[in-house]
């Protein structure tokens, strides 16, 4: 079983035996990998009924629900990690979802497609059309991505919110690329975050 590159980065950096909430877990591929290779206690939240059924069939505990509305039901600091992979840009209120992730998990992995990648820029600059690329394959009217963001947008948001970056990985064509030029060269970004001092009580819990 081969994980998508951003999921592989996350899987590599989750501590063994941790409690993990995967928000937008799809059919549960990452959760199953974490369970099978790291003994992780993984729970999932997923919007699509077919995906939930597939994940349940893998023996995973997954709730059909919406990150925008249903994260409020999870208790504070009930997981070691909350994961949001390729879902932030589909949320109606990504800032609120991010706050919920850091409230629920001691740490949060967030991955998203970088809208400032050079191919996207070229497409918009020369084509004058909303980009349709390998990682952003939908057209403007059928894309689930309603809040496009760039790596620099995200970095600025983290700084404004006082959210601490514990790790960041940038991917292009499945390979890691440098942090310095990431906003131009990376197709994907993966961030490992924790909340501000005020709400990071779980840091030394274990």
């Amino acid at each position, binding site marked *: 079983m081969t994980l998508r590159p951003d999921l592989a980065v996350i899987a590599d950096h989750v501590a063994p035996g941790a409690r993990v909430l995967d928000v937008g877990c799809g059919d549960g591929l990452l959760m199953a990998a974490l369970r099978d290779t790291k003994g992780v206690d993984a*729970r999932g939240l997923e919007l699509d*009924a077919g995906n*939930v*059924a*597939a*994940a*349940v*069939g*893998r*023996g*995973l*505990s*997954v*709730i*059909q*629900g919406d990150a925008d509305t249903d994260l409020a*039901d*999870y*208790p504070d600091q*009930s997981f070691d990690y909350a994961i949001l992979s390729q879902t932030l840009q589909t949320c109606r209120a990504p800032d609120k979802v991010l706050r919920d992730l850091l409230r629920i998990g001691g740490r949060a992995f967030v991955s998203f497609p970088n809208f400032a990648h050079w191919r996207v820029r070229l497409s918009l600059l020369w084509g004058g059309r909303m980009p349709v690329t390998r990682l952003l394959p939908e057209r403007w009217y059928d894309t689930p991505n309603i809040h496009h963001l760039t790596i620099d947008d995200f970095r600025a948001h983290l700084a404004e919110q006082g959210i601490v970056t514990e790790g960041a990985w940038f991917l292009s064509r499945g390979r890691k690329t440098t942090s310095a030029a990431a906003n131009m060269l990376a197709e994907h970004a993966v961030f490992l975050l924790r909340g501000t001092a005020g709400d990071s009580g779980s840091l030394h819990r274990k």
Partner: protein
Amino acid sequence: MSDDQRYGLGRHIVLPGPLRLDGGGMLAPVEIAYETYGTLAPDGGNAVLICHALTMDQFVASPHPRTGKPGWWTAMVGPGRPIDTDRMFVVCANVLGSCMGSSGPATIDPATAREYAMAFPVITIRDMVRAQAMLLDHLGVARLAAVVGGSMGGMQALSWAATFPDRVAAAVVIASAARHSAQNIAFHEVGRQAVMADPRWNNGDYYNGEVPAAGLAVARMAAHITYLSEAGLTEKFGRRLQARDAKSFGFDADFQVESYLRHQGLSFVDRFDANSYLYITRAMDYFDLAEEHGGLLANAFRASRARFCLVSFDTDWLYPTRESRAIVHALNAAGAPVSFMELSSPYGHDAFLLDSPELYRVVAGFLGAGA
């Protein structure tokens, strides 16, 4: 095991009891009628308890002896089915208070040698569950691989996990709720009053005469509406007339929907006892799992080590999705492993009994994953 008279179809056991009831009374002896399918593994680890709904019975996968109809969940339970009787040992018992062989108001009270009628104690969902636990003791089942139920069966499954946290490895709760809402109670009260308003009900003392068929039929008609969705009724009947070209300007069943409901009511009274209907609807109205645990539903599940799977249907307005979500929320708060899906169906509450490949897939996946 084939020679062991505890297992098989058409079983009936009289347990000495006493069963201590939530209402304060005792019941002794305790009669339980049940069916078993499949073979109990030597380690006893493959037992699945199916809990039935209000007017269902133990004939989950075998023909009903009175109506001759096939079991009510044969697509879910059987060889190669999601609850696979080739692998699992499946038990389904008639609930306490019912009328298909388990102790209920139509049972003979040993103290008087007459039917209990309204002298039967008022029972709760938890009393039903405790009676089932006595049956499992008798069958040699210490711990259930799964307890599965829809509607009132789901309430029993929840009550099982809360009451016997060490005896349940997995619970499947379909189209159910952790408590009866004011609307649920209201509909049940209409049904009970319809029964009690029938002069033949005679304060419950009718076993040697005519049964209160008219009252029970009306109760069933009212309840049946709550099992269907408005869209389902419209699709099935619309305003179509029943075997006539024009309205009769009278009070015959002009409309197909009237004829259908009358048929539902009449066929129900042939197979169900009116007093049982009073007692079981009461048990459902009294059900409030949070109330039994200090007012906080999460507390009901803190000791549980079970995995949970909840399923709701989008057109079910009797036990709507928000009721399942409230349970999921509580299970999350208790840290219990829980899966939840809202399935789409045009058929309202009844959807859990109708053909639903999505439901079969989820149940099979959930149960198969735990084995």
